[in-house]
Protein backbone atom coordinates (compact mmCIF):
# COMPACT_ATOMS: atom_id res chain seq x y z
CA UNK A 1 0.00 0.00 0.00
CA UNK A 2 1.49 3.37 -0.92
CA UNK A 3 1.54 6.40 1.34
CA UNK A 4 -0.76 8.37 -0.95
CA UNK A 5 -3.32 5.58 -0.97
CA UNK A 6 -3.23 5.49 2.83
CA UNK A 7 -3.75 9.25 2.89
CA UNK A 8 -6.78 8.91 0.64
CA UNK A 9 -8.25 6.16 2.83
CA UNK A 10 -7.75 8.35 5.91
CA UNK A 11 -9.48 11.27 4.20
CA UNK A 12 -12.38 9.16 2.90
CA UNK A 13 -12.98 7.48 6.22
CA UNK A 14 -12.78 10.80 8.08
CA UNK A 15 -15.40 12.20 5.71
CA UNK A 16 -17.47 9.07 6.36
CA UNK A 17 -17.24 9.67 10.12
CA UNK A 18 -18.25 13.33 9.68
CA UNK A 19 -21.30 12.19 7.70
CA UNK A 20 -22.05 9.72 10.48
CA UNK A 21 -22.01 12.53 13.06
CA UNK A 22 -24.41 14.64 10.97
CA UNK A 23 -26.79 11.70 10.44
CA UNK A 24 -26.76 10.75 14.13
CA UNK A 25 -27.31 14.38 15.08
CA UNK A 26 -30.49 14.55 13.00
CA UNK A 27 -31.59 11.08 14.07
CA UNK A 28 -31.42 12.11 17.72
CA UNK A 29 -33.28 15.38 17.07
CA UNK A 30 -35.95 14.03 14.71
CA UNK A 31 -36.52 10.43 15.79
CA UNK A 32 -37.03 8.63 19.05
CA UNK A 33 -39.88 8.63 21.53
CA UNK A 34 -41.05 11.99 20.13
CA UNK A 35 -40.83 12.19 16.32
CA UNK A 36 -40.49 15.40 14.38
CA UNK A 37 -40.77 15.57 10.58
CA UNK A 38 -38.01 17.32 8.64
CA UNK A 39 -40.26 20.17 7.39
CA UNK A 40 -41.58 20.69 10.94
CA UNK A 41 -38.03 20.79 12.25
CA UNK A 42 -37.02 23.56 9.86
CA UNK A 43 -40.23 25.47 10.55
CA UNK A 44 -39.61 25.24 14.30
CA UNK A 45 -36.00 26.41 14.06
CA UNK A 46 -36.87 29.18 11.54
CA UNK A 47 -39.78 30.44 13.65
CA UNK A 48 -37.68 30.27 16.80
CA UNK A 49 -34.98 32.44 15.24
CA UNK A 50 -37.38 34.92 13.63
CA UNK A 51 -39.87 34.98 16.47
CA UNK A 52 -42.62 33.37 14.36
CA UNK A 53 -45.49 31.25 15.69
CA UNK A 54 -44.57 28.20 17.75
CA UNK A 55 -45.92 24.74 17.13
CA UNK A 56 -47.51 23.73 20.43
CA UNK A 57 -45.53 21.02 22.18
CA UNK A 58 -43.17 20.32 19.31
CA UNK A 59 -41.42 23.70 19.50
CA UNK A 60 -40.71 23.26 23.19
CA UNK A 61 -39.48 19.69 22.90
CA UNK A 62 -37.18 20.44 19.97
CA UNK A 63 -35.82 23.79 21.12
CA UNK A 64 -35.54 23.13 24.85
CA UNK A 65 -34.79 19.45 24.96
CA UNK A 66 -33.79 17.59 21.80
CA UNK A 67 -31.72 20.23 20.00
CA UNK A 68 -29.58 21.41 22.95
CA UNK A 69 -29.14 17.78 23.93
CA UNK A 70 -27.83 16.84 20.47
CA UNK A 71 -25.68 19.98 20.24
CA UNK A 72 -24.07 19.36 23.64
CA UNK A 73 -23.72 15.65 22.87
CA UNK A 74 -21.83 16.45 19.66
CA UNK A 75 -19.57 18.98 21.32
CA UNK A 76 -18.65 16.88 24.36
CA UNK A 77 -18.03 13.92 22.04
CA UNK A 78 -15.59 16.00 19.99
CA UNK A 79 -13.94 17.35 23.14
CA UNK A 80 -13.59 13.97 24.90
CA UNK A 81 -12.38 12.31 21.70
CA UNK A 82 -9.72 14.96 21.15
CA UNK A 83 -8.65 15.07 24.81
CA UNK A 84 -8.17 11.30 24.86
CA UNK A 85 -6.29 11.18 21.56
CA UNK A 86 -4.01 14.08 22.57
CA UNK A 87 -3.06 12.36 25.84
CA UNK A 88 -2.63 8.93 24.29
CA UNK A 89 -0.48 10.25 21.46
CA UNK A 90 1.64 12.52 23.61
CA UNK A 91 2.36 9.89 26.26
CA UNK A 92 2.53 7.02 23.76
CA UNK A 93 0.32 5.06 26.11
CA UNK A 94 -3.26 3.99 25.31
CA UNK A 95 -4.10 4.01 29.04
CA UNK A 96 -3.27 7.67 29.37
CA UNK A 97 -6.68 9.13 28.60
CA UNK A 98 -8.15 11.75 30.98
CA UNK A 99 -10.91 9.40 32.19
CA UNK A 100 -8.39 6.72 33.21
CA UNK A 101 -5.83 9.01 34.83
CA UNK A 102 -8.33 10.65 37.14
CA UNK A 103 -8.93 14.03 35.52
CA UNK A 104 -12.62 13.31 34.92
CA UNK A 105 -12.77 11.93 38.45
CA UNK A 106 -11.39 15.23 39.73
CA UNK A 107 -14.31 16.96 38.04
CA UNK A 108 -16.81 14.46 39.50
CA UNK A 109 -15.43 14.74 43.00
CA UNK A 110 -15.46 18.55 42.93
CA UNK A 111 -19.03 18.57 41.60
CA UNK A 112 -20.21 16.10 44.26
CA UNK A 113 -18.48 18.12 46.99
CA UNK A 114 -20.20 21.27 45.71
CA UNK A 115 -23.62 19.56 45.66
CA UNK A 116 -23.44 17.57 48.88
CA UNK A 117 -21.46 19.90 51.14
CA UNK A 118 -22.28 23.35 49.76
CA UNK A 119 -25.73 22.60 48.36
CA UNK A 120 -24.71 24.15 45.05
CA UNK A 121 -26.59 23.68 41.79
CA UNK A 122 -26.46 24.68 38.11
CA UNK A 123 -23.51 26.73 36.85
CA UNK A 124 -21.72 26.63 40.21
CA UNK A 125 -21.52 22.83 40.00
CA UNK A 126 -20.17 23.04 36.44
CA UNK A 127 -17.63 25.59 37.60
CA UNK A 128 -16.59 23.34 40.48
CA UNK A 129 -16.20 20.41 38.06
CA UNK A 130 -13.96 22.52 35.83
CA UNK A 131 -11.80 23.64 38.74
CA UNK A 132 -11.65 20.07 40.07
CA UNK A 133 -10.43 18.68 36.75
CA UNK A 134 -7.77 21.37 36.40
CA UNK A 135 -6.62 20.94 40.01
CA UNK A 136 -6.24 17.18 39.65
CA UNK A 137 -4.40 17.63 36.35
CA UNK A 138 -2.04 20.09 38.03
CA UNK A 139 -1.45 17.68 40.89
CA UNK A 140 -0.75 14.74 38.58
CA UNK A 141 1.57 16.86 36.49
CA UNK A 142 3.47 18.05 39.57
CA UNK A 143 3.84 14.52 40.95
CA UNK A 144 5.06 13.07 37.69
CA UNK A 145 7.08 16.03 36.41
CA UNK A 146 10.24 14.82 38.14
CA UNK A 147 10.02 11.95 35.68
CA UNK A 148 9.18 14.25 32.82
CA UNK A 149 12.12 16.56 33.32
CA UNK A 150 14.71 13.86 33.82
CA UNK A 151 13.09 11.32 31.51
CA UNK A 152 14.91 11.39 28.23
CA UNK A 153 14.35 7.72 27.64
CA UNK A 154 11.37 5.69 26.59
CA UNK A 155 7.99 6.02 28.20
CA UNK A 156 9.09 6.69 31.78
CA UNK A 157 7.36 10.07 31.89
CA UNK A 158 4.11 8.69 30.49
CA UNK A 159 4.07 5.73 32.85
CA UNK A 160 4.66 7.92 35.89
CA UNK A 161 1.80 10.17 34.82
CA UNK A 162 -0.57 7.22 34.38
CA UNK A 163 0.38 5.73 37.74
CA UNK A 164 0.05 9.07 39.55
CA UNK A 165 -3.35 9.53 37.89
CA UNK A 166 -4.61 6.05 38.80
CA UNK A 167 -3.56 6.62 42.41
CA UNK A 168 -5.32 9.97 42.61
CA UNK A 169 -8.43 8.53 40.92
CA UNK A 170 -8.61 5.84 43.62
CA UNK A 171 -8.35 8.44 46.38
CA UNK A 172 -11.07 10.59 44.78
CA UNK A 173 -13.24 7.53 44.34
CA UNK A 174 -13.11 7.05 48.12
CA UNK A 175 -13.99 10.71 48.72
CA UNK A 176 -16.98 10.49 46.38
CA UNK A 177 -18.24 7.25 47.94
CA UNK A 178 -17.92 8.71 51.43
CA UNK A 179 -19.94 11.79 50.43
CA UNK A 180 -22.61 9.72 48.69
CA UNK A 181 -23.22 7.64 51.79
CA UNK A 182 -23.61 10.82 53.88
CA UNK A 183 -25.92 12.63 51.47
CA UNK A 184 -29.71 12.44 51.69
CA UNK A 185 -31.47 10.62 48.91
CA UNK A 186 -32.49 13.64 46.79
CA UNK A 187 -29.07 15.27 46.94
CA UNK A 188 -27.54 11.91 46.11
CA UNK A 189 -29.75 11.63 43.03
CA UNK A 190 -28.51 15.06 41.87
CA UNK A 191 -24.94 14.07 42.54
CA UNK A 192 -25.31 10.74 40.77
CA UNK A 193 -25.53 12.51 37.42
CA UNK A 194 -21.99 13.76 38.06
CA UNK A 195 -20.72 10.25 38.50
CA UNK A 196 -22.20 8.83 35.30
CA UNK A 197 -22.34 11.65 32.84
CA UNK A 198 -25.71 12.63 31.49
CA UNK A 199 -27.28 14.89 28.88
CA UNK A 200 -30.65 14.87 30.64
CA UNK A 201 -30.21 18.40 31.92
CA UNK A 202 -28.84 19.86 28.68
CA UNK A 203 -29.81 23.47 28.03
CA UNK A 204 -28.74 26.36 25.81
CA UNK A 205 -26.72 28.11 28.53
CA UNK A 206 -24.45 25.12 28.86
CA UNK A 207 -24.30 24.72 25.09
CA UNK A 208 -23.26 28.36 24.74
CA UNK A 209 -20.44 28.10 27.28
CA UNK A 210 -19.23 24.87 25.73
CA UNK A 211 -19.31 26.44 22.26
CA UNK A 212 -17.21 29.39 23.39
CA UNK A 213 -14.70 27.06 25.05
CA UNK A 214 -14.39 24.94 21.91
CA UNK A 215 -14.07 28.05 19.74
CA UNK A 216 -10.82 28.72 21.60
CA UNK A 217 -9.65 25.15 22.13
CA UNK A 218 -10.14 23.69 18.65
CA UNK A 219 -7.83 26.23 16.93
CA UNK A 220 -5.35 25.62 19.75
CA UNK A 221 -5.45 21.90 18.93
CA UNK A 222 -4.82 22.81 15.29
CA UNK A 223 -1.69 24.74 16.26
CA UNK A 224 -0.31 22.09 18.61
CA UNK A 225 -1.01 19.19 16.21
CA UNK A 226 2.19 19.96 14.25
CA UNK A 227 4.59 19.72 17.21
CA UNK A 228 2.62 16.68 18.47
CA UNK A 229 3.50 14.80 15.26
CA UNK A 230 7.16 15.38 16.11
CA UNK A 231 6.83 14.59 19.83
CA UNK A 232 5.50 11.19 18.79
CA UNK A 233 9.04 10.32 17.64
CA UNK A 234 10.37 10.44 21.20
CA UNK A 235 11.57 13.36 23.31
CA UNK A 236 15.18 13.27 22.11
CA UNK A 237 14.31 13.09 18.43
CA UNK A 238 11.78 15.88 18.87
CA UNK A 239 14.35 18.07 20.61
CA UNK A 240 16.77 17.36 17.76
CA UNK A 241 14.13 18.54 15.30
CA UNK A 242 13.76 21.88 17.07
CA UNK A 243 10.82 21.24 19.42
CA UNK A 244 11.00 22.72 22.90
CA UNK A 245 9.87 19.47 24.43
CA UNK A 246 8.83 20.63 27.89
CA UNK A 247 7.04 23.72 26.66
CA UNK A 248 5.22 21.76 23.94
CA UNK A 249 4.24 19.05 26.39
CA UNK A 250 2.93 21.57 28.91
CA UNK A 251 0.87 23.29 26.20
CA UNK A 252 -0.54 19.91 25.12
CA UNK A 253 -1.43 18.94 28.69
CA UNK A 254 -3.19 22.27 29.27
CA UNK A 255 -5.19 22.03 26.04
CA UNK A 256 -6.15 18.38 26.53
CA UNK A 257 -7.07 18.83 30.21
CA UNK A 258 -9.17 21.89 29.45
CA UNK A 259 -10.99 19.99 26.68
CA UNK A 260 -11.79 17.15 29.07
CA UNK A 261 -12.67 19.59 31.84
CA UNK A 262 -15.15 21.73 29.87
CA UNK A 263 -16.81 18.63 28.46
CA UNK A 264 -17.09 17.11 31.94
CA UNK A 265 -18.41 20.40 33.33
CA UNK A 266 -21.16 20.36 30.70
CA UNK A 267 -22.34 16.75 31.05
CA UNK A 268 -20.37 14.90 33.69
CA UNK A 269 -17.69 12.29 33.04
CA UNK A 270 -19.18 10.27 30.18
CA UNK A 271 -17.11 7.17 30.71
CA UNK A 272 -14.88 5.53 28.13
CA UNK A 273 -15.45 8.11 25.36
CA UNK A 274 -12.02 9.74 25.69
CA UNK A 275 -10.42 6.35 26.24
CA UNK A 276 -11.98 4.61 23.24
CA UNK A 277 -12.21 7.34 20.59
CA UNK A 278 -8.52 7.28 19.67
CA UNK A 279 -8.10 3.48 19.35
CA UNK A 280 -11.38 3.11 17.42
CA UNK A 281 -10.42 5.94 15.08
CA UNK A 282 -7.07 4.27 14.45
CA UNK A 283 -8.71 0.93 13.79
CA UNK A 284 -11.10 2.56 11.37
CA UNK A 285 -8.75 4.86 9.46
CA UNK A 286 -5.56 2.79 9.80
CA UNK A 287 -3.69 5.70 11.34
CA UNK A 288 -3.66 7.83 14.47
CA UNK A 289 -5.66 10.91 13.53
CA UNK A 290 -6.95 13.75 15.72
CA UNK A 291 -9.92 14.76 13.52
CA UNK A 292 -11.04 11.13 13.20
CA UNK A 293 -10.72 10.65 16.99
CA UNK A 294 -12.85 13.74 17.63
CA UNK A 295 -15.52 12.53 15.19
CA UNK A 296 -15.54 9.03 16.70
CA UNK A 297 -16.05 10.65 20.11
CA UNK A 298 -19.10 12.51 18.78
CA UNK A 299 -20.47 9.35 17.13
CA UNK A 300 -20.14 7.39 20.40
CA UNK A 301 -21.87 10.04 22.51
CA UNK A 302 -24.71 10.67 20.04
CA UNK A 303 -25.38 6.99 19.45
CA UNK A 304 -25.16 6.13 23.15
CA UNK A 305 -27.41 9.02 24.11
CA UNK A 306 -30.00 8.01 21.51
CA UNK A 307 -30.05 4.54 23.07
CA UNK A 308 -30.17 5.99 26.60
CA UNK A 309 -32.96 8.45 25.88
CA UNK A 310 -35.15 6.47 23.48
CA UNK A 311 -34.55 2.73 23.62
CA UNK A 312 -33.79 2.33 27.32
CA UNK A 313 -37.21 3.75 28.43
CA UNK A 314 -38.96 1.11 26.29
CA UNK A 315 -37.17 -1.68 28.15
CA UNK A 316 -36.98 -0.06 31.58
CA UNK A 317 -40.53 1.28 32.01
CA UNK A 318 -39.75 4.82 30.98
CA UNK A 319 -36.44 5.39 32.79
CA UNK A 320 -34.19 7.68 30.76
CA UNK A 321 -30.68 6.42 31.44
CA UNK A 322 -27.68 8.73 31.79
CA UNK A 323 -25.58 8.47 28.62
CA UNK A 324 -22.54 7.42 30.68
CA UNK A 325 -24.26 4.18 31.66
CA UNK A 326 -24.54 3.20 28.01
CA UNK A 327 -20.99 4.23 27.06
CA UNK A 328 -19.73 2.34 30.11
CA UNK A 329 -21.78 -0.77 29.34
CA UNK A 330 -20.80 -0.80 25.65
CA UNK A 331 -17.31 0.56 26.21
CA UNK A 332 -15.94 -2.11 28.50
CA UNK A 333 -16.68 -5.12 26.23
CA UNK A 334 -15.51 -3.12 23.24
CA UNK A 335 -12.21 -2.43 24.98
CA UNK A 336 -11.78 -6.14 25.63
CA UNK A 337 -12.58 -6.94 22.01
CA UNK A 338 -10.04 -4.35 20.91
CA UNK A 339 -7.41 -5.95 23.15
CA UNK A 340 -8.10 -9.49 21.98
CA UNK A 341 -8.08 -8.70 18.26
CA UNK A 342 -5.05 -6.45 18.67
CA UNK A 343 -3.06 -9.24 20.32
CA UNK A 344 -3.98 -11.61 17.57
CA UNK A 345 -2.68 -9.18 14.97
CA UNK A 346 0.58 -8.58 16.80
CA UNK A 347 1.25 -12.25 17.48
Amino acid at each position, binding site marked *: *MTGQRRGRILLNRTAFLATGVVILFFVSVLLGSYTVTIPDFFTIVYNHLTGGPRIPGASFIVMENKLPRAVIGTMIGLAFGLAGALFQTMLRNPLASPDIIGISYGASAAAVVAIVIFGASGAVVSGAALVGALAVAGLIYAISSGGIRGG*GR*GNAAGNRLVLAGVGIAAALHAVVNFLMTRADIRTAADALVWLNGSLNSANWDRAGILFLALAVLLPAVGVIAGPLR*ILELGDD*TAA*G*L*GIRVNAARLALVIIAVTLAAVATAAAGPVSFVAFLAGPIARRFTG*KASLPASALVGAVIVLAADFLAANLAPLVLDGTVLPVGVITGALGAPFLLWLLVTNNRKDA
Partner: protein
Amino acid sequence: MPDVAVLNAEDLTLKYDQRCVVDGLSVEIPEGRVTMIVGANACGKSTLLRGLSRLLKPAGGAVTLDGKDIHTRPARELARTLGLLPQHPTAPDGITVRDLVGRGRYPHQGFFRSWSEKDDLAVQRALEATETLALAGRNVDELSGGQRQRVWIAMALAQETDILLLDEPTTYLDLAHQVEVLDLVTDLNRRRGTTVAIVLHDLNLAARYADNVIAMKAGAVVAEGTPGEVVTEDLVRSVFNLESRVIPDPVSGTPLIIPIGRHHVPTELELVS
Protein backbone atom coordinates in the same frame (compact mmCIF):
# COMPACT_ATOMS: atom_id res chain seq x y z
CA MET B 1 33.86 25.25 2.76
CA PRO B 2 34.05 28.46 4.78
CA ASP B 3 30.41 28.60 5.86
CA VAL B 4 30.36 25.17 7.48
CA ALA B 5 29.35 25.43 11.12
CA VAL B 6 31.81 24.63 13.91
CA LEU B 7 30.62 22.99 17.12
CA ASN B 8 32.59 23.62 20.32
CA ALA B 9 32.28 22.70 23.96
CA GLU B 10 33.99 25.18 26.29
CA ASP B 11 34.61 24.29 29.91
CA LEU B 12 31.38 22.28 29.74
CA THR B 13 29.85 20.83 32.91
CA LEU B 14 26.85 18.52 32.59
CA LYS B 15 24.80 17.16 35.46
CA TYR B 16 21.85 14.83 35.91
CA ASP B 17 20.05 16.26 38.92
CA GLN B 18 23.02 16.67 41.25
CA ARG B 19 25.25 13.97 39.77
CA CYS B 20 28.05 15.51 37.77
CA VAL B 21 28.79 13.45 34.66
CA VAL B 22 30.94 15.78 32.60
CA ASP B 23 33.10 18.32 34.43
CA GLY B 24 34.86 21.24 32.80
CA LEU B 25 35.31 19.59 29.42
CA SER B 26 36.52 21.48 26.36
CA VAL B 27 36.43 19.87 22.95
CA GLU B 28 36.01 20.83 19.31
CA ILE B 29 34.12 18.78 16.74
CA PRO B 30 36.28 19.46 13.66
CA GLU B 31 34.27 20.63 10.69
CA GLY B 32 33.80 18.45 7.66
CA ARG B 33 35.18 15.36 9.34
CA VAL B 34 33.96 12.18 11.01
CA THR B 35 34.58 12.22 14.75
CA MET B 36 34.08 9.15 16.91
CA ILE B 37 33.61 9.53 20.65
CA VAL B 38 34.75 6.38 22.46
CA GLY B 39 35.11 5.26 26.05
CA ALA B 40 34.00 2.69 28.60
CA ASN B 41 30.39 2.36 29.75
CA ALA B 42 29.21 5.33 31.83
CA CYS B 43 32.24 7.47 30.93
CA GLY B 44 29.96 10.35 29.91
CA LYS B 45 30.22 9.98 26.14
CA SER B 46 26.47 9.84 25.52
CA THR B 47 26.02 12.64 28.04
CA LEU B 48 28.53 14.76 26.12
CA LEU B 49 26.55 14.13 22.92
CA ARG B 50 23.35 15.13 24.72
CA GLY B 51 25.06 18.31 25.84
CA LEU B 52 26.36 19.06 22.34
CA SER B 53 22.90 18.56 20.87
CA ARG B 54 21.12 20.72 23.45
CA LEU B 55 19.17 17.86 25.05
CA LEU B 56 20.97 18.69 28.29
CA LYS B 57 21.42 22.23 29.53
CA PRO B 58 24.96 22.83 30.82
CA ALA B 59 25.41 23.37 34.55
CA GLY B 60 28.53 25.31 33.61
CA GLY B 61 30.41 26.40 30.51
CA ALA B 62 28.81 26.50 27.08
CA VAL B 63 28.34 24.71 23.79
CA THR B 64 28.82 27.08 20.89
CA LEU B 65 27.97 26.81 17.23
CA ASP B 66 29.94 29.30 15.12
CA GLY B 67 30.86 31.05 18.33
CA LYS B 68 27.26 31.49 19.54
CA ASP B 69 25.82 29.66 22.56
CA ILE B 70 23.36 27.04 21.24
CA HIS B 71 20.97 27.69 24.14
CA THR B 72 20.44 31.30 23.07
CA ARG B 73 19.34 30.38 19.55
CA PRO B 74 15.76 29.62 18.51
CA ALA B 75 15.21 25.85 18.64
CA ARG B 76 14.06 25.49 15.04
CA GLU B 77 16.81 27.63 13.60
CA LEU B 78 19.37 25.50 15.43
CA ALA B 79 17.68 22.33 14.15
CA ARG B 80 18.33 23.48 10.59
CA THR B 81 22.09 23.36 11.28
CA LEU B 82 22.48 20.70 13.95
CA GLY B 83 20.82 17.29 13.53
CA LEU B 84 20.62 14.46 16.02
CA LEU B 85 19.80 10.79 15.89
CA PRO B 86 19.24 9.61 19.47
CA GLN B 87 19.90 6.10 20.72
CA HIS B 88 16.28 5.01 21.06
CA PRO B 89 14.03 6.86 18.64
CA THR B 90 10.40 5.68 18.70
CA ALA B 91 8.31 5.26 15.59
CA PRO B 92 4.58 5.87 16.05
CA ASP B 93 2.37 2.85 15.23
CA GLY B 94 1.36 2.50 11.61
CA ILE B 95 3.65 5.25 10.28
CA THR B 96 5.05 4.74 6.77
CA VAL B 97 8.70 5.18 5.89
CA ARG B 98 8.00 8.21 3.70
CA ASP B 99 5.92 9.87 6.43
CA LEU B 100 8.63 9.29 9.04
CA VAL B 101 11.40 10.63 6.81
CA GLY B 102 9.19 13.61 5.96
CA ARG B 103 9.02 14.58 9.62
CA GLY B 104 12.73 15.38 9.38
CA ARG B 105 11.63 18.45 7.44
CA TYR B 106 9.87 19.93 10.49
CA PRO B 107 12.51 22.59 11.29
CA HIS B 108 12.30 23.84 7.70
CA GLN B 109 8.59 24.42 7.93
CA GLY B 110 6.96 27.30 9.68
CA PHE B 111 3.58 28.51 10.68
CA PHE B 112 3.06 30.05 7.27
CA ARG B 113 5.29 27.76 5.24
CA SER B 114 3.81 24.33 4.78
CA TRP B 115 5.03 21.33 2.77
CA SER B 116 6.77 22.36 -0.47
CA GLU B 117 8.50 20.86 -3.47
CA LYS B 118 11.80 21.48 -1.73
CA ASP B 119 10.69 19.21 1.12
CA ASP B 120 9.64 16.52 -1.36
CA LEU B 121 13.05 16.75 -2.99
CA ALA B 122 14.90 16.52 0.34
CA VAL B 123 12.89 13.43 1.33
CA GLN B 124 13.51 11.84 -2.06
CA ARG B 125 17.26 12.48 -1.77
CA ALA B 126 17.35 11.09 1.77
CA LEU B 127 15.50 7.93 0.69
CA GLU B 128 17.84 7.46 -2.27
CA ALA B 129 21.00 8.05 -0.22
CA THR B 130 19.97 5.44 2.34
CA GLU B 131 18.61 3.06 -0.32
CA THR B 132 15.23 3.02 1.33
CA LEU B 133 13.28 4.36 -1.65
CA ALA B 134 11.82 0.90 -2.30
CA LEU B 135 10.55 0.82 1.29
CA ALA B 136 8.90 4.25 1.14
CA GLY B 137 5.33 2.96 1.29
CA ARG B 138 5.99 0.28 3.91
CA ASN B 139 5.11 0.46 7.59
CA VAL B 140 8.16 1.20 9.76
CA ASP B 141 7.17 -1.53 12.26
CA GLU B 142 7.32 -4.15 9.46
CA LEU B 143 11.01 -3.48 8.76
CA SER B 144 14.08 -5.36 9.96
CA GLY B 145 16.42 -3.71 12.46
CA GLY B 146 18.94 -2.73 9.79
CA GLN B 147 16.29 -1.29 7.49
CA ARG B 148 14.73 0.63 10.35
CA GLN B 149 18.05 2.20 11.31
CA ARG B 150 18.58 3.25 7.67
CA VAL B 151 15.13 4.87 7.72
CA TRP B 152 15.97 6.83 10.88
CA ILE B 153 19.20 7.98 9.30
CA ALA B 154 17.16 9.00 6.25
CA MET B 155 15.01 11.12 8.55
CA ALA B 156 18.10 12.80 9.95
CA LEU B 157 19.39 13.34 6.37
CA ALA B 158 16.11 14.94 5.31
CA GLN B 159 16.76 17.53 7.99
CA GLU B 160 19.72 18.64 5.79
CA THR B 161 21.95 19.90 8.57
CA ASP B 162 25.65 20.81 8.34
CA ILE B 163 26.33 18.81 11.48
CA LEU B 164 24.92 15.40 12.37
CA LEU B 165 25.30 13.78 15.80
CA LEU B 166 24.56 10.06 16.20
CA ASP B 167 24.29 8.24 19.52
CA GLU B 168 25.36 4.60 19.08
CA PRO B 169 23.68 4.18 15.71
CA THR B 170 24.87 0.57 15.41
CA THR B 171 23.41 -0.79 18.68
CA TYR B 172 21.43 -4.02 18.19
CA LEU B 173 22.64 -4.39 14.59
CA ASP B 174 24.60 -7.37 13.31
CA LEU B 175 28.12 -6.80 12.01
CA ALA B 176 27.09 -6.44 8.35
CA HIS B 177 24.49 -3.82 9.22
CA GLN B 178 26.94 -1.99 11.50
CA VAL B 179 29.36 -1.66 8.60
CA GLU B 180 26.53 -0.63 6.31
CA VAL B 181 25.43 2.17 8.64
CA LEU B 182 28.99 3.47 9.06
CA ASP B 183 29.56 3.34 5.29
CA LEU B 184 26.38 5.32 4.81
CA VAL B 185 27.43 8.00 7.29
CA THR B 186 30.87 8.19 5.66
CA ASP B 187 29.21 8.64 2.24
CA LEU B 188 27.27 11.53 3.67
CA ASN B 189 30.43 13.12 5.02
CA ARG B 190 32.41 12.63 1.81
CA ARG B 191 29.66 13.75 -0.59
CA ARG B 192 28.03 16.60 1.30
CA GLY B 193 30.84 17.62 3.62
CA THR B 194 28.59 17.04 6.62
CA THR B 195 30.36 17.21 9.97
CA VAL B 196 29.61 13.95 11.77
CA ALA B 197 30.09 13.03 15.42
CA ILE B 198 29.24 9.50 16.53
CA VAL B 199 29.27 7.85 19.93
CA LEU B 200 30.39 4.30 19.20
CA HIS B 201 30.97 1.27 21.39
CA ASP B 202 33.04 -0.76 18.97
CA LEU B 203 36.59 0.54 19.18
CA ASN B 204 37.78 -1.30 16.06
CA LEU B 205 35.03 0.11 13.89
CA ALA B 206 35.61 3.54 15.42
CA ALA B 207 39.31 3.33 14.55
CA ARG B 208 38.44 2.23 11.02
CA TYR B 209 35.84 4.89 10.24
CA ALA B 210 36.99 7.93 12.24
CA ASP B 211 38.98 10.87 10.91
CA ASN B 212 39.20 12.04 14.48
CA VAL B 213 38.85 10.11 17.75
CA ILE B 214 37.87 11.58 21.09
CA ALA B 215 38.57 9.14 23.94
CA MET B 216 36.79 9.80 27.23
CA LYS B 217 37.24 8.54 30.76
CA ALA B 218 35.26 9.57 33.85
CA GLY B 219 33.71 12.59 32.17
CA ALA B 220 36.94 13.99 30.76
CA VAL B 221 38.71 13.82 27.41
CA VAL B 222 41.89 11.76 27.77
CA ALA B 223 43.04 11.72 24.14
CA GLU B 224 42.09 13.34 20.88
CA GLY B 225 43.47 13.00 17.37
CA THR B 226 43.63 10.64 14.41
CA PRO B 227 42.99 6.95 15.18
CA GLY B 228 46.66 6.22 14.53
CA GLU B 229 47.75 8.71 17.18
CA VAL B 230 45.09 7.96 19.77
CA VAL B 231 44.34 4.25 19.68
CA THR B 232 47.28 2.61 21.42
CA GLU B 233 47.76 -0.23 23.88
CA ASP B 234 48.34 2.34 26.65
CA LEU B 235 45.07 4.13 25.84
CA VAL B 236 43.07 0.91 25.83
CA ARG B 237 44.61 0.02 29.17
CA SER B 238 43.84 3.38 30.77
CA VAL B 239 40.37 3.90 29.27
CA PHE B 240 38.96 0.37 29.28
CA ASN B 241 41.22 -1.16 31.94
CA LEU B 242 42.02 -3.89 29.40
CA GLU B 243 45.31 -5.39 28.26
CA SER B 244 45.51 -5.62 24.49
CA ARG B 245 47.70 -5.74 21.44
CA VAL B 246 47.19 -3.07 18.81
CA ILE B 247 48.23 -4.09 15.31
CA PRO B 248 47.69 -2.47 11.90
CA ASP B 249 44.31 -3.48 10.49
CA PRO B 250 45.21 -5.76 7.52
CA VAL B 251 42.40 -4.17 5.46
CA SER B 252 42.64 -0.46 6.20
CA GLY B 253 45.93 -0.01 8.01
CA THR B 254 44.13 1.68 10.92
CA PRO B 255 44.77 0.42 14.48
CA LEU B 256 43.16 -2.94 15.27
CA ILE B 257 42.71 -3.84 18.91
CA ILE B 258 43.21 -7.47 19.93
CA PRO B 259 41.95 -7.83 23.50
CA ILE B 260 43.81 -10.02 25.98
CA GLY B 261 41.51 -11.60 28.55
CA ARG B 262 42.25 -14.23 31.17
CA HIS B 263 41.41 -17.25 29.01
CA HIS B 264 42.57 -18.57 25.64
CA VAL B 265 45.88 -16.78 26.09
CA PRO B 266 49.10 -18.83 25.90
CA THR B 267 51.23 -18.03 28.94
CA GLU B 268 54.33 -17.28 26.85
CA LEU B 269 52.54 -14.23 25.39
CA GLU B 270 54.00 -12.10 28.20
CA LEU B 271 57.46 -13.10 26.96
CA VAL B 272 56.70 -12.27 23.34
CA SER B 273 55.50 -8.76 24.10
